[in-house]
């Protein structure tokens, strides 16, 4: 017997009926058309199907859709701002962090949840975080580099947001140094 499912995907709410056996990945891909979420191993081993549910990265191939009732889901389609890619997506391109790209959306979603939690991770922390993600063509080093690069980009974006208004620039250390004439 079908049951009602209410979910928010990438900020938009959806309401429809599903068979209880339906997995989250099928709802996303087949019912809502978010095919950026990929299915690969289908046995919880590769993490290509990773999406974010209420801020946490999870494997959509191993969760009953009804268990996500009332929750908020983010897929890779929810990251870009119009034509502007998300800094993590851009960092993956700039660091050659994929070839075939099949595992990439899962890698990026895991990186997103991770960087939200830990904005300045070490190489080892990234390794521990991403250990469940399997890439069979690029090699995991470039992915690790892309995530560290993305962390830097996100941090400078945050810093730019916090930049003081023009009149406060005087209080900046470099401005003071310039004024006092003690600069290099």
């Amino acid at each position, binding site marked *: 017997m079908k049951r009602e499912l209410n979910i928010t995907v990438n900020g938009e709410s959806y309401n429809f009926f599903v068979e209880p056996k339906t997995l989250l990945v099928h709802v996303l891909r087949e019912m809502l058309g978010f095919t950026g979420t990929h299915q690969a191993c289908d046995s919880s081993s590769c993490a290509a199907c990773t999406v974010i549910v209420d801020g946490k990265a999870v494997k959509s191939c191993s969760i009953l859709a009804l*268990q996500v009732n009332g929750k908020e889901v983010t897929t890779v389609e929810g990251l870009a701002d119009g034509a502007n890619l998300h800094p993590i997506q851009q960092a993956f391109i700039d660091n050659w962090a994929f070839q075939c790209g099949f595992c990439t959306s899962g890698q990026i979603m895991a990186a997103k949840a991770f960087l939200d939690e830990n904005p300045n991770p070490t190489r080892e922390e990234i390794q521990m975080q991403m250990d469940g993600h399997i890439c069979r063509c690029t090699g995991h080093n470039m992915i690790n580099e892309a995530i560290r690069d993305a962390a830097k980009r996100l941090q400078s974006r945050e810093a730019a947001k916090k930049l003081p208004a023009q009149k406060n620039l005087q209080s900046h250390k470099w401005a003071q140094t310039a004024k006092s004439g003690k600069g290099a």
Partner: protein
Amino acid sequence: MKTITTDFEYLPATTVEEALDMLSQHKDDDYKIIAGGQSLCTAMKHRLIAPEYLIDIKGLTDLDYIKFDEKEGLKIGALATHRSLEKSQIVREKYSVLCEMEENVASVETRNWGTVVGDLCNADPAVDPAPPLIVLDAKLKIQSKGEERTVAAEEFALDFFETTVQEGEMVTEIQIPVIPPNTGVYFTKYSQMLGDYALGSVAVLITLDKKKEVCANARIGLAGVDSAPVRAKKAEEVLKGKKITEALLAEAAEVVKTEINPVSGIEGSEDYKRELAGTLLKRVGKVALERAQKA
């Protein structure tokens, strides 16, 4: 493409009482309880099981807790995820071995949704939380409608994917006593890939006497090397009342090999797993001893 092919009746519970009512009502039916379902969904997709009823307890938020009390110790609710145990500040402070264990359970994504109690109830013989819980003398609270009992962690799993939980019952809490002074605990698993199920895993708890010379108490728990996680009581006896040295740990390692019944598989033969258990015991025992000396 693998998916769940057989239909089931889905019964979501929102309170413990409701879940216990459902369990008592469907006692004689073919049902399964689902929490995170990280093992169950896979088993259903592989068509290993096809229950008629699925009682969903993921919504029992009142069981999603990790509480510590100086007298009663640690209590982990049935809906606490692996990840919440790994990230709990109080657990890292008081039971660091549990956080260390969690860091290598499957992957972050699985830990974010899967529960510790669900993992134990799935009863894979190589289940990661079992050895540390056995040495920490943990108990599991099992409830059914109007009834309640507790079972020691070492007596919980009976065989491959079989536990002491009966029809109509569910595990609601893990209870772990306060760790005594002068005690060190350590756990290691050996697996082919980070996050895989263990080929073998060992936890050791060592309590030293007041002068920190002689072993006052020792507990050894293993997983992956028998049809269910086991406690190695004979090997513990080798250590008790003596000054622990590498030679004594080697002696205990020989005993542990005789206490387990590994099954040969593609990942390792019976003999290999016995050797593995002995080697791990020596390594883990050494770290537990160092920790006890520093405690």
